């Protein structure tokens, strides 16, 4: 099965093959990794990647998002399988008519506003950078259009789903 992941603003595509008994083969960037996963203490997962050992914890799972801890290092991850990824892309196209509201995907702080009110933007152009748990998340424009409302201000704390701007 193919997966599309976004971690720390970078996108990755990987192919995973379930070999049963907690063993997997994952191909990423043309390299094949042997991965062994086993439930360990307190809900954590012990993962051996080519025999290198990691203690992994998955928390705050919601939709396609989760916070993954490797040891004590948190990573905010957005990950969807091929089918779901296509569906998401499809849904995004369907709703592209009319104005698009860009909201904060998590509580955090607006650390950069990359566009101004009235700016013409391209699809996938970075609009606002929100930081949460030391991770920066660049929010991209869902469509080509014009910024018709701009509520995000640098330095402001925002709640989850807070309206940041509107592209029309």
């Amino acid at each position: 099965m193919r997966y599309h992941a976004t971690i720390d603003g970078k996108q990755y595509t990987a192919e995973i093959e379930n070999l049963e008994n907690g063993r997997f083969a994952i191909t990423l960037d043309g390299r094949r990794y042997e991965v062994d996963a086993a439930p360990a203490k307190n809900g954590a997962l012990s993962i051996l990647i080519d025999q290198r050992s990691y203690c992994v914890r998955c928390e705050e799972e919601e939709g396609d998002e989760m916070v993954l801890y490797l040891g004590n290092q948190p990573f905010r991850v957005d990950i969807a399988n091929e089918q779901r990824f296509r569906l998401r892309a499809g849904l995004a196209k369907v709703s592209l008519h009319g104005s698009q509201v860009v909201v904060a995907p998590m509580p955090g702080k607006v650390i950069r506003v990359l566009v101004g009110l009235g700016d013409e933007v391209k699809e996938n152009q970075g609009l606002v950078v929100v930081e949460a748990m030391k991770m920066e998340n660049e929010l991209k424009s869902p469509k080509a259009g014009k910024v018709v409302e701009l509520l995000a201000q640098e330095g402001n704390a925002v709640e989850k789903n807070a309206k940041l701007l509107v592209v029309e």
Partner: protein
Amino acid sequence: MGQKIQKVLVANRGEIAVRVMRTCRELGISTVAVFSEADRTAAHVLFADEAYCVGPPPSRQSYLDQGRIIDAARRSKADAIHPGYGFLSENPSFVRACEKAGLTFIGPPASAMEAMGEKTRARANMARAGVPVVPGTTEPLQSVDAARAFAEKIGYPVMLKAAGGGGGKGMRRVNGSPELDSAWRAAKSESLNAFGNDAVYLEKLIERPRHIEIQVFADAHGTCIHLNERECSAQRRHQKVVEEAPSPIVDRPMREAMGQVAIKAAKAVGYHGAGTVEFLVDAQRNFYFLEMNTRLQVEHPITEWTTGLDLVAWQIKVAEGMKLPLDRPLAPRGHAIEARIYAEDPAQGFLPSPGRIRQLGAPSGHFVRDDSGVYSGYTVSSHYDPMISKLSVWAHSRSEAIARLGRALDEYVVTGITTNISYLRSILRHPAFAAGSYDTEFLEREHPTLALAKKSETLTLPAVLAAVVVAEQRDRRRTSANPRLDGSGSISPWRQVSRRRRPRV
């Protein structure tokens, strides 16, 4: 005084309450916790033999309410009160209230607290006893003109300080005469807000000072000794972050000189119990009395590591009227470092991050000590100090201690809330810290390097691979579960996918 203590009420919360109760239990003394309504399931309540609610969450109505705490002591038939640090620990009126209620206060006499509590009085007392103080006024200043005249006499830069208290409140640096008026107004209003007293005094500013303190211990029989120094220069806004013992710049003669001065200071005010004399040390290693903390310090574990003593046990014994078991100083053995773990986000201006701890995995292993006040599933409250634990280590040498503390910090897992663990890790890695050449401005000066350090990328690839495995399991779980029972309100796109796979009815 003079009889064995049977039951101690600890008038505090969190890690220090647990730490005190641990020693009580080892000594066969029963323990009583007090708690606010916000702390019903806090670690100290779970640990204690008995626990009494003393009021609503705000400290003023609970942990600072002398009447309610004395009442809990009466109801529990405790014979002594240990105040921990903070809260009522340096309040002479509480000491008197304990005495009036027939309770032993485990700490110094009220008179010694008063002599050290008001800063200009403490400075005057110390100067009279021959203890070196930073050049400055010994009385609160009456007017801004008096301040200007004095500043010109000793030379700028100077520091305006609150007479009523410490901790960095009501403190202003003044580089020259034009800055004095606004600094004067700011220091006075801040002092009034923080201490209910707008008196300020003036000191010569010591550039890039180190903060080094001496632990003292005195019994009621005239013996007073010192237990060496602690280096506490790694501080942020006058709050200590990392402490170590011994200090990288203190050699034996300097230790002995500082120790003798600290003993002189404690004796001058009739001190007994555990106390700490804080000094500012300039670039030429001259040291000046800063203040005396008339209680057990947060960072006392590093002294325990390097002396092998239990300072809380000593406090209890001194309160029982026993003589100190030592009358000579103990040379420090090896090296200890402590790091304070806070529920706060260094990258967002150290914003407190209260909330529920999902998983807590504390480090262990040889010569590692974790004084914690929290647990997995515990909710860090926004009502109190966000310190959740003190992690300390011991090793033969300073460099081994740094490596050990680094290892222990890497092992420390706290999920669900943001902590300063990676910030502490950056401090240990900093070349100035490693070299032992840092002063009280180090953390502010190096803030961008320390707090905004980019995350190491070595874990990114493993994170991607782990995420793929976790997502594969998630998707299989979701496919097999009944999509109608997943609890979310709206129909998610995910549910539409799942629904399509199900046979139509």
